[in-house]
């Protein structure tokens, strides 16, 4: 019974593809695999912990001020993540620049807290948070995979397309590094995902 909470958001109920949450700051970090991975891990940690904490506090929070309480908890968690990144992964933190701070306004976190954590016990909320965070991370990595492979001919900074191919006239697709490519790739991923999950199709 707990398994769907964790695995559902990975594909069928994916936060980006099905619920259309959290696209805000997602795409700007997908030009390379490495920042996308760091961002995915950070968002998963914040979503899971925010769901856990707010679910544990749900009976103590007055309904009228809940948005402010949620924002305070989430910003405190993001500050911790930001300081950790600055201490242990300074380069990644510089690459992500403002997008670490923007985890606060990531709709996935507020969306899952509002829709799930405030009505459920801490343990299922934690699983739901981890599941949705991972669902987000998978899409980031998928987009980053194609952008880095086609745009720079590399994965995680390591060159994978052999030199011989370049000598025969192969060229990296410069458009893939630029922002529009991320939008078009997500559009195509949504297309494929909905073609396989017909019940998500909009009328």
């Amino acid at each position: 019974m707990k398994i769907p909470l964790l695995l559902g958001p990975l594909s069928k109920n994916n936060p980006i593809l099905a619920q259309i949450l959290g696209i805000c700051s997602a795409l700007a970090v997908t030009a390379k695999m490495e920042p996308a991975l760091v961002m995915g891990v950070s968002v998963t940690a914040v979503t899971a912990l925010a769901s856990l904490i707010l679910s544990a506090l749900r009976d103590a929070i007055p309904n009228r001020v809940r948005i402010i309480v949620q924002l305070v908890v989430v910003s405190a968690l993001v500050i911790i993540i930001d300081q950790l990144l600055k201490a242990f992964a300074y380069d990644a933190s510089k690459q992500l620049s403002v997008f670490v701070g923007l985890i606060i306004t990531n709709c996935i976190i507020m969306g899952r807290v509002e829709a799930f954590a405030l009505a459920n016990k801490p343990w299922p909320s934690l699983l739901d948070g981890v599941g949705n965070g991972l669902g987000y991370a998978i899409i980031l990595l998928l987009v980053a995979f194609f952008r880095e492979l086609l745009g720079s001919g590399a994965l995680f900074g390591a060159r994978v397309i052999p030199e011989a191919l370049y000598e025969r006239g192969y060229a990296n697709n410069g458009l893939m590094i630029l922002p529009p490519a991320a939008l078009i790739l997500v559009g195509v991923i949504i297309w494929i995902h909905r073609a396989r999950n017909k019940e998500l199709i909009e009328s």
Partner: protein
Amino acid sequence: MENLANIFVRATFIDNMIFAYFLGMCSYLAVSKTVKTSIGLGVAVAFVLLVTVPINYLINAYLLSPGALARLFEGGAHIDLGYLSFIVFIAVVAAVVQLLEMIIEKYTPALYNQLGIFLPLIAVNCAIMGASLFMQEREYNSIAETFAFALGSGLGWLLAIAGVAAIREKLATANIPAPLRGVGITFIVTGLMAISFMSFLGISI
């Protein structure tokens, strides 16, 4: 003056919130079905940006940046409150949105009826928070530059959402493959619009 115009044009066209940084995508996707409502949301976002970014600039310059407290009391030079900026910025944004909602409701009920539903949404709009964080990162030097940046960003966001809403109104009658309808085609249209906005790259005044 030249510098201000440059910052304004950069923020509107080159570093456009939607097309270059994907900020505010959630409400951009959810509310862009008709031109009228999207212009309402766009104006509200632009207005909140114009209020919150300068406030956050003042807080950042006079309270949070390293050594800023030296002006207030002795020994303040060693204190760096920079790590508090996230929580302070989001609190300012939430408070300003709440305050604006109350003021608009009291004095201009007509405007409130148009914008009312969007205002609470704006508190968690990444474009607002993002603009404050960009302001901090790019280190603008004066309040005038901050205003130019906020005005440009807001106008850019308004342009983007009004443009995509107009296209979506036309697309409603187009024959799009079923799985691509709705969000999917909106992403691809936004991508194509972003490519056209890239032609502004390199413009400076």
